């Protein structure tokens, strides 16, 4: 029998960026908030300090900061008719766990989406007509616009201290920034990062070809910065251990550095780590949540009653929790009825390694997680697709996020995979190879979705999440087109060998691509095609809000965290200014 605890006002499931910011905002209004985090407590000191944190084997190879697959795995298949099998180790994407969530081990690439991304269906159909969209694709508008989210993007960027140069200030194009970005209301809080040598070479080649290179927005500090919560961050030292690692310098914006110390000081907030939420409980009507059940590290089950439940775990786990709790109707791709699990999308990544002459020393190990030089000319719908036969695009980024010894050894095609020739090739190319990273849109499709696995269960006896995904043909055509364009830039840089590697199907879980898993609990204005309304409130159970990349109806070219930050503050505002005064459906 679970032990029933004293009722609180709010339960937050998952204490990452979304959980800690929402908890902070609500606890500040006087509400009693409990944060349930399945992973461990961890802080910049002592958990992220060097030299222990720079353990590539532990954190990169053995995925030290990720969800424990021996307790909670996921199953995967490419096609609806196949039998899904469990992933026994993380490779393609890396769901984080522990206090701070993915906000601890991210690269700090803090982008905004484009104006058109939020009205994608309307925009694409207006610009190109309906025929450009393949029949199986399911693009949608968000139900909330860029203009509405802009103040919340701004707030999140100032919380993080994002470093960059504005390219579009209130519609006015600024020198030195990204002229193709959506208009922003004020300058970035901090100047951009230092440009890497590879990025400088790329900048020249891209400019020669008529593109518009700029330094990407970064949440790794370029100077000491005190955020509006009064927390001070230190400048980054470009050590090249951002993604998959915690930052020892208080230099990368993470919940630990930008918000948690303030939240933890508020006596209205209580953090409970190693607390595995089993389900959100509903009353007999199924329209109201009464709290959650969770299990602690000793295997004791508790019922925590609450009047408001915020689901803020990793995107994929949010979807699973809705399915486990019976909130919203599960999606069925055959009938296209149901919504939970619908429009699961990803990121269509590709790479262009440019092998340069031996007298060009790139020193790519002097890097931060977001110190690349980028062109936005082929992102999203920033270019005319009329004659191209696909929708979507990629940003093209040159620059390293690291050049760590175990993971980074570029060799040209035809190099043996081991032995003396391999070693010789690594020696020759290690410091002379610039790798372009193309981050591409992922278009939602009828057959890509998430549901519960009928066979496999986790350590608590609950069904695993099942992912059914393959790249839509549209996205592969898109990747081919933009990757070819990127190769032209690489050749212009004087590369002796350029490897043109567009994304090809089928999707495989065995090589890392991106942890930008989106959709499954999507936002929208129609309950028949979305799980949450424009305030991230579930249509079916108004006292359950879900905030995560699972809200995205399809994925744009950009890394999702910046947009997630905007949604977090947008939702916080709706909760504080409207929901708390009059709990009930906001739409």
């Amino acid at each position, binding site marked *: 029998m679970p032990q029933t605890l004293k009722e609180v006002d709010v339960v937050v499931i998952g204490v990452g960026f979304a959980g800690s910011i929402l908890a902070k905002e609500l606890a500040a209004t006087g509400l009693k908030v409990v944060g349930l985090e399945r992973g461990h407590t961890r802080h910049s000191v002592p958990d992220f300090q060097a030299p222990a944190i720079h353990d590539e084997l532990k954190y990169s190879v053995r995925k030290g900061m990720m969800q424990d697959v021996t307790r909670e795995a996921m199953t995967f298949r490419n096609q609806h008719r196949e039998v899904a099998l469990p992933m026994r180790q993380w490779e393609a994407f890396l769901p984080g766990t522990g206090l701070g969530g993915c906000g601890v081990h991210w690269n700090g690439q803090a982008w905004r989406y484009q104006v058109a991304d939020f009205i994608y269906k309307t925009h694409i159909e207006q610009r190109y007509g309906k025929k450009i969209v393949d029949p199986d694709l399911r693009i949608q508008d968000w139900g909330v616009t860029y203009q509405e989210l802009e103040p919340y993007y701004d707030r999140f960027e100032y919380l993080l201290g994002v470093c960059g140069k504005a390219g579009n200030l209130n519609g006015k194009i600024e020198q030195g920034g990204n002229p193709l970005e959506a208009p922003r209301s004020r300058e970035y809080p901090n100047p951009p990062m230092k440009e890497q040598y590879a990025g400088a070479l790329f900048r020249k080649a891209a400019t020669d070809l008529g593109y518009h290179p700029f330094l990407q927005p970064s949440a790794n500090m370029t100077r000491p910065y005190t955020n509006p919560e009064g927390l*001070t961050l230190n400048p980054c030292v470009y050590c090249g251990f951002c993604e998959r690692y915690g930052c020892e310098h208080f230099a990368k914006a993470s919940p630990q550095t930008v918000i948690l110390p303030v939240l933890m000081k508020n006596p209205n907030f209580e953090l409970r780590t190693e607390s595995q939420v089993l389900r959100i409980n509903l009353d007999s009507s199924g329209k109201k949540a009464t709290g959650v059940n969770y299990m602690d590290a000793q295997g004791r089950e508790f019922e925590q009653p609450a009047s408001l439940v915020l689901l803020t775990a990793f995107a994929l786990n949010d979807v699973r929790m809705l399915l486990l709790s019976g909130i919203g109707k599960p999606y069925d791709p055959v009938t296209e009825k149901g919504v939970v699990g619908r429009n699961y999308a990803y990121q269509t990544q590709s790479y262009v390694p440019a092998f340069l002459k031996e007298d060009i020393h790139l020193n790519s190990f002097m890097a931060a997680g977001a110190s690349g030089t980028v062109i936005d000319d082929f992102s999203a719908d920033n270019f005319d697709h009329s004659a191209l036969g696909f929708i979507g695009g990629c940003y093209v980024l040159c620059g390293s996020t690291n050049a760590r010894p175990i993971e980074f050894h570029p060799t040209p095609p035809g190099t043996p995979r081991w032995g003396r020739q391999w070693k010789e090739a690594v020696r020759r190319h290690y410091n002379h190879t610039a790798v372009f990273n193309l981050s591409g849109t992922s278009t939602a499709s009828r057959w890509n979705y998430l549901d519960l696995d009928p066979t496999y269960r986790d350590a608590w006896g609950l069904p695993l999440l099942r992912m059914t995904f393959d790249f839509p043909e549209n996205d592969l055509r898109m990747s081919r087109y933009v990757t070819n364009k990127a190769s032209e830039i690489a050749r212009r840089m004087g590369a002796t060998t350029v490897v043109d590697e567009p994304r090809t199907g089928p999707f495989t879980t065995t090589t890392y691509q991106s942890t930008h898993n989106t959709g499954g609990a999507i936002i929208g204005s129609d309950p028949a095609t979305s799980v949450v309304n424009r305030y991230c409130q579930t249509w079916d159970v108004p006292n359950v809000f879900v905030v995560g990349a699972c809200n995205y109806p399809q994925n744009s070219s950009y890394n999702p965290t910046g947009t997630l930050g905007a949604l977090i503050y947008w939702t916080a505002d709706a909760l504080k200014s409207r929901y708390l005064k009059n709990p009930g459906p906001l739409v």
Partner: protein
Amino acid sequence: MTRNHILRNTALALPFAGALLVSFSTAQSAATDSTQLGAQIVAQGTANGAIACARCHGFDGQADGSGAFPKLAGQFPQYLAKQLRAYASGTRQNALMEPIAKGLKDAEIDSVAQYYASLHPSTLPSRPVAAQLVARGEQLAKLGDLNLRVQACESCHGPNGQGEPPAVPYLAGQYSHYINFQIQMFRQGIRKSQQMQDPAHSLREPDIVAVAAYFERASRNGAK
């Protein structure tokens, strides 16, 4: 592998090895010349008004235990040269060092830096202090302090404060008085460093004393 095989490979390898030796020894003798010039400046000063470095820092780069002047022996040449240029340009302020640095030509700065870098620092006996103080310093150096939001000093200054060449100086064996004074300079914004600004502000006075005491007693790996 046969004897002939080995001989054949050796024969092939020899001309290359020869070429390497020649170029290596050329480079080495240039460095030696520069270091010798550095030694001369350290002992005698220059005609342009730079007084002999040895007067304060010692010919052996050990200065003295008072810590009024830093130990320079074995400090990284790039770091030393950067500091001299900063004194010369006034970006690092010091009434004593500024005219001296201005009296050194560019090549002389590199020579002096190379000379001091080539010396092995030795550890002089320290004054006894409370074990607790050193322990607190070690904690800050190796782990940092969450409440103060200070990272471990050794994240940049290397294990035991052995430094991270070329940019980050060693602290192991440096005089505590000097370390303490420099942190105060960073704290007051007189000495400027983006990396040091915040930690120097966040440390409390007793922490600064503690961390300085720890590093004076830390043993630099490879130090003879």
